[in-house]
């Protein structure tokens, strides 16, 4: 039984990454109608920016949590301005292919310069060590990841669902012409939203840098799972993707305990089941 508690907690930790990443995807899909396949590459860039800040600029983890999302977010906004904005109104497939291409290019460039086995990034001194919870030894850093990402997820949900800015955003996706008539600069708002989604990916990247290797392919390995999370949660549903992210982390954790061989596939099995029973996802509204 003790082992089970531990697995649940570990699942929650992995779930926080799924939640943060799928949240960014859901924001981008909900507001821009773009299936952002570059999300994994941007997550990877977040981790690399943190690495460079530390090793080239001497800027520590805490500042990286702030700067890396901003830097990668600006990169994302440049992408949106120069490429993605031309796809407005076209079939989803175009956005998917374009962002997929961007992801391959970004990953290829990083791989060319940094190889594939990755670079080390140490856990910040304040979060080193761990505590004994009785049923498991919890590294403090992992606990921090869960709490921090929960806060970020809820803040983002609040921003979009409960504030005036969020209301503008949601209105702009429903009917951009009308919102523009009220004097709102819709294209700028869309760009900033993409920047926000990308920033969330970069933030997840910084959070994961001390746990995983900072590797060019770290995002590519994760993105497919995260997409499954978004599909299960319901495309574009903010709360749905947060809850599904955490829940799938836990389910995956339990699979790793009971039948580890299937831990890579369990998420996709669930995705298939959900799509068969409720094609709009667990919390999705019918289109």
């Amino acid at each position, binding site marked *: 039984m003790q082992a089970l508690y531990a697995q649940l907690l570990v699942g929650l930790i992995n779930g926080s990454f799924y939640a943060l990443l799928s949240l960014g995807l859901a924001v981008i899909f909900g507001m821009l109608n773009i299936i952002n396949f570059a999300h994994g590459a941007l997550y990877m860039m977040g981790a690399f920016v943190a690495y460079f800040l530390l090793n080239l600029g001497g800027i520590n983890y805490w500042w990286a949590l702030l700067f890396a999302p901003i830097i990668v977010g600006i990169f994302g906004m440049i992408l949106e301005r120069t490429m993605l904005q031309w796809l407005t109104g076209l079939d989803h497939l175009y956005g998917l292919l374009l962002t997929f291409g961007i992801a391959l290019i970004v990953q290829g460039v990083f791989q060319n310069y940094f190889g594939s086995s990755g670079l080390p990034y140490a856990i910040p001194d304040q979060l080193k060590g761990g505590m004994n919870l009785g049923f498991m030894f919890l590294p403090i850093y992992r606990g921090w990841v869960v709490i921090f990402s929960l806060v970020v997820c809820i803040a983002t949900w609040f921003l979009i669902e409960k504030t005036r800015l969020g209301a503008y955003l949601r209105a702009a996706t429903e009917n951009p012409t009308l919102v523009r008539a009220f004097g709102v600069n819709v294209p700028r708002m869309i760009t900033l939203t993409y920047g926000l989604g990308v920033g969330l990916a970069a933030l997840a990247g910084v959070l994961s840098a001390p746990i*995983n290797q900072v590797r060019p392919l770290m995002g590519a390995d994760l993105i497919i799972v995260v997409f499954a999370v978004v599909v299960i949660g319901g495309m574009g549903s903010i709360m749905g993707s947060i809850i599904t992210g955490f829940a799938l982390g836990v389910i995956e954790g339990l699979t790793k305990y009971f039948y580890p*061989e299937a831990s890579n596939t369990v998420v996709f099995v669930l995705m298939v089941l959900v799509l068969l029973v409720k094609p709009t996802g667990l919390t999705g509204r019918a289109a």
Partner: protein
Amino acid sequence: MKTKSIASLLLTTALTFAVTGVASAQDKTVKIGALSDQSGLYADLGGPGSTLAAQMAVEDSGLAAKGWKIDIISGDHQNKPDIGTAIARQWFDVDKVDIIVDVPNSGVALAVNNVIKEKNGVYINSGAATSDLTNAQCSPNTVHWTYDTYMLAHTTGQALVKAGGDSWFFLTADYAFGAALERDTTAVVTANGGKVIGGVKHPLNTPDFSSFLLQAQSSKAKIIGLANAGGDTTNTIKQAAEFGIGKGGQKLAALLLFLTDVKAIGLETAQGLNFTETFYWDMNDKTRAFSKRFAEKMKNNAPPTMVQAGVYAGVRHYLKALDALGGNPHDGVKVVEKMKSMPTEDDLFGKGEIQPNGRTIHNAYLFEVKKPSESKGPWDFYKLVGTVPGDQAFTPLSESKCALLKK
């Protein structure tokens, strides 16, 4: 009529002899295929560096001056056996490749082994670990250089059991390599009076090991054996440190660790790990000289890993055999027989031999990862702890199940 036909028969036969005779005297073209994981988790330990190693071997052989024309092509098997065999088939059928080198990932390596045997090519494997390549699945076309699971089990594994690590829990990559390494290590553990109390199989390329590490932790085994490689091993070691596994008295056995893995983990976390390799760039003047030349040509100035060094040494020996044969390099079995008949000697692995089952025998070295304070340069990672002579490190012929030995 009859005389005419006899005459024509004679003429044809004579012509055939003339043509083949000319061909065998002059055919000095060879094509080498470097098949590896070019972009995945094993790309840094093999990959483009292995292709470079093969190129350097060709340049250093001096065969070009003797009229040989040697080409090298490379391919990416993406760690998938079906892609690996498809590339191998195309190389033999269309591109007329004579020899395939490197091929990390035991699953791919075993699949490609069959294709090369069928096409009568030459196979110098350096990247894969499974000891089956020279054991149950040995082939007259195959030479296995550098290392294998038997060697890893009988060096690192044995040393740990003898030092008191008598209960083991395995974290095993769920494919041919992990299974072979776990099997060979288990044999060593039990033969030395230890026991294996559990294990868990994880999928290849797993980013998060915390679940598995918790299971290992609660097993209370003295040794947690890592039967995985590359990115999987680095993630396990890093995350094991996070979960305080070393502090609880359990010890990690990195059964297979490469230079690039130590770089990725960082000395802070990796220090003190014991493991076995057959090549390290900083062994002596010859290895340093080669590694310097090699690093200058690598994109990130990395010195060679033991896999890349094995590709170099293997190709050098292959080319020596071709030189001795004088030409006509397309009969794989014949070339490999020639290779086996000559003792191996090169700057990187020293003196050795190729056994009848295809296993190359050379020294293996027990290393310990240096403390950060002991490291003097960007790749200064290892301290030499001990040397295991080749005949003690690798499968003795008496234990080998290779069918070639029964003749």
